[in-house]
C-alpha cells in the first residue's frame, strides 16, 4: 500500500485543490480573488464546531461547513458587485484578512465529556477528534477527500458543458457584451462567487477534520494567492487546469525534495517563463480545444 508520506502529500494536494478550483471559478467569470482562503477557514471552523461541539456526524458537519461558506460567499458577492478588476481582488483580500483577524479573537467554548472544547481565539481550535473517535485511517480519509474532489470536479466539468458554463465564460470575457445578449451578469457573478465559497468550504471542512487542529494564521493570504496561482499555471481552459497546477507545485516540487532550499527559486523562475509563453496557463482554451478535437478524432477512428 501507499506509505504515510505519500498519503500525506496526496491528502494535502486534494484539500488545496478545492481552493484552486474555487479561485478558478471566480477567474472564469472574469474576477480575481485573493480571498478564497476565507471560505476554507469559515468552513473549517463551522464544521469543527458542528462535529466536535454539537456532536454532529462527519458528513453532516462537512455539508454544514460548506453551506456556511457558500452563504459567506453570497454575503461577499452582493456588496462587491460594483467593484471590478484589481479593486475586486483587493476587496476579497480585505475580506479574507477580516475573517482571519476575526477568528483571532473568536472564542466559543463548551464542555464536552468534561473537557472545554472550541475555538479559543489565536490559540486556535483543538480537539476536532472525529477521525480518532471513529477510528478512520489516513488512507481511508484520503479516499473520502478524493471522492469529494471527484464529485466537485465532475459537477464543474458538467456545468462547463451546459449553457450556464458558456454564459459564465461570456461574462468573464466581456460583461458589457454579455449583458447586451440578455445575460444577467450580476446574478451569474453572485451565484458563481457563492458556489466558489461552497467549494472552498468542502476543502476547509476536510482540512479541519484531518488535522484535528486549526489556527487562524494558517488561513493567511499566501494560501489564497497560491490557490489563485495554481489555476493560472495549470490553465484556465478547463477545471483540470487548477489540479494540474497543484500537482506540479505540491506533487512534484515540494515532495521530491530534489530542490529543497531552492524550491521557490526554481519554481518561481519556471512559472515566470511559463507565463511568458502561455499567459493563460498550460491547459488554456486553445490547448483544451486541440485536445478535445484530438480525442474526438480518435473516437471517430475506432
Amino acid at each position: 500500500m501507499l506509505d504515510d508520506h505519500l498519503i500525506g502529500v496526496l491528502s494535502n494536494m486534494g484539500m488545496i485543490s478545492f481552493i484552486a478550483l474555487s479561485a478558478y471559478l471566480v477567474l472564469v467569470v472574469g474576477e480575481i480573488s485573493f480571498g478564497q482562503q476565507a471560505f476554507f477557514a469559515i468552513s473549517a471552523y463551522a464544521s469543527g464546531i458542528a462535529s466536535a461541539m454539537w456532536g454532529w456526524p462527519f458528513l453532516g458537519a462537512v455539508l454544514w461547513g460548506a453551506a456556511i461558506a457558500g452563504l459567506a460567499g453570497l454575503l461577499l458577492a452582493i456588496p462587491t458587485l460594483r467593484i471590478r478588476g484589481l479593486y475586486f481582488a483587493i476587496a476579497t483580500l480585505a475580506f479574507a484578512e477580516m475573517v482571519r483577524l476575526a477568528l483571532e479573537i473568536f472564542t466559543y467554548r463548551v464542555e464536552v465529556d468534561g473537557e472545554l472544547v472550541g475555538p479559543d481565539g489565536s490559540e486556535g481550535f483543538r480537539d476536532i477528534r472525529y477521525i480518532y473517535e471513529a477510528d478512520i485511517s489516513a488512507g481511508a480519509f484520503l479516499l473520502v477527500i478524493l471522492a469529494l474532489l471527484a464529485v466537485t470536479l465532475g459537477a464543474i466539468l458538467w456545468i462547463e458543458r451546459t449553457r450556464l458554463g458558456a454564459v459564465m465564460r461570456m461574462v468573464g470575457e466581456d460583461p458589457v457584451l454579455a449583458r447586451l445578449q440578455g445575460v444577467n451578469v450580476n446574478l451569474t457573478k453572485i451565484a458563481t462567487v457563492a458556489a466558489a465559497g461552497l467549494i472552498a468550504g468542502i476543502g476547509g471542512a476536510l482540512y479541519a477534520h484531518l488535522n484535528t487542529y486549526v489556527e487562524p494564521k494558517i488561513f493567511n493570504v499566501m494560501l489564497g494567492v497560491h490557490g489563485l496561482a495554481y489555476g493560472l499555471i495549470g490553465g484556465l481552459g478547463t477545471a483540470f487546469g487548477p489540479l494540474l497546477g497543484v500537482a506540479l507545485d505540491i506533487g512534484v516540487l515540494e515532495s521530491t525534495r530534489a530542490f529543497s532550499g531552492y524550491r521557490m527559486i526554481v519554481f518561481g523562475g519556471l512559472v515566470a517563463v511559463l507565463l511568458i509563453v502561455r499567459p493563460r496557463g498550460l491547459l488554456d482554451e486553445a490547448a483544451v480545444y486541440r485536445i478535445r478535437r484530438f480525442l474526438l478524432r480518435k473516437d471517430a477512428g475506432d
Partner: protein
Amino acid sequence: MADFLQNCLDGIATGAAYALLALGFTLIFGVLRRLNLSYGPSIMAGVFAGTALYMAFDAGLAEIAVATVIGAVVVGAYIERLCFWAIRKDMAVASMVSSFVIWMQIEEGVTLLFPDRTYAFPGILADAVVEFGPFFLRASSLAMLAIAALAVLGLLGLIYRTHFGLAVRAVSENPQAARVAGVNTGLVTLLAFACASALGGLAGFLIAAGDQQITPLFGLWATFKGLIAMMLGGMGSIPGAVLGGLLLGVVEANALWYLGVETRDLVAYMLLFAVLTFRPGGLMGQAALMARRAAESRV
C-alpha cells in the same frame, strides 16, 4: 483628546512611510495598468544590499542609501523585464501571478544569503524627538514626512512638466498610439519602473533606518501596506496615494490605542473594505472610474 491628537501624530509618522510606498505602487500602476506584487520584495532586496555593505565595510549612511536604491532598482528592472515587458499587455492576471512567484523567488534568495531572522541597520536621528508643546514626534518620522512631500512634488513635476512625463502619460493612456507617435514604450516603461523602484528604495532605507533593523518579512509588509494605502486613495492617483497612506496610518494608530493590537489590522481592513464598497474607485479615483462607466453605458 490629547491622546487622540498624539495618536494622530504617531499615525501621520507611520502614514508617511505608507504614503511613500503607495507612491511607487501608483506610479507603476499608472504606467502599466497592472499590479506589481513584487514591489515590496524588491525594496527588501535593496535594503539587504545596504545591510550587506554596512556589515562588510562598515560603510557610511550615504553609501548605504545609494546601495539600497541601486539594489531596489536592479531587482525592479529584473521584475519589469520578466513579469511585465515579456508578457502581453492584455494578460494582466498573468503578470500579477508572475510577479507573485518572483516575490517568492526573491524572498527565498534573500533568506538563503541572509539566514538570520533580523539584521542590524544603521539608524539616522534614531533617538531624536521633536516636541510641540505636550505632543512629540520622532525626528526620523518628520524627515520621512518631508521626503514624502518632496517626492510628491518631484513626481508631479516629472509627470506633468517634463517631456519624459508626457511620454509616460501617453504610454499610460494608449500604448499603441504612443508607439505610433514615436515614443519608445519599452524604454519609457522601464525608466518609470526604475523611478518607482528608486522611490521604493529610498522609502525602504528610511523605514529601515527608523527601525534600525531589517527582516526578510519586510517585503510582505511593504507590499501590503503600500497596496492598501494606494487602494484607499485610488489606483494611479498621486495625491490619492498620500491621502491613503496618511489615513491608514492615523486609523491604525487610533485603533491600536483604543482597541488594542489584535484589532488594529482588523480595523484597517474593515476601512479598506468599506471604502471599496462605497467608493469602488478609491477615495480619489472615483472620477476616472465614473468616466469609464459612463463610456461603457454609451456602448
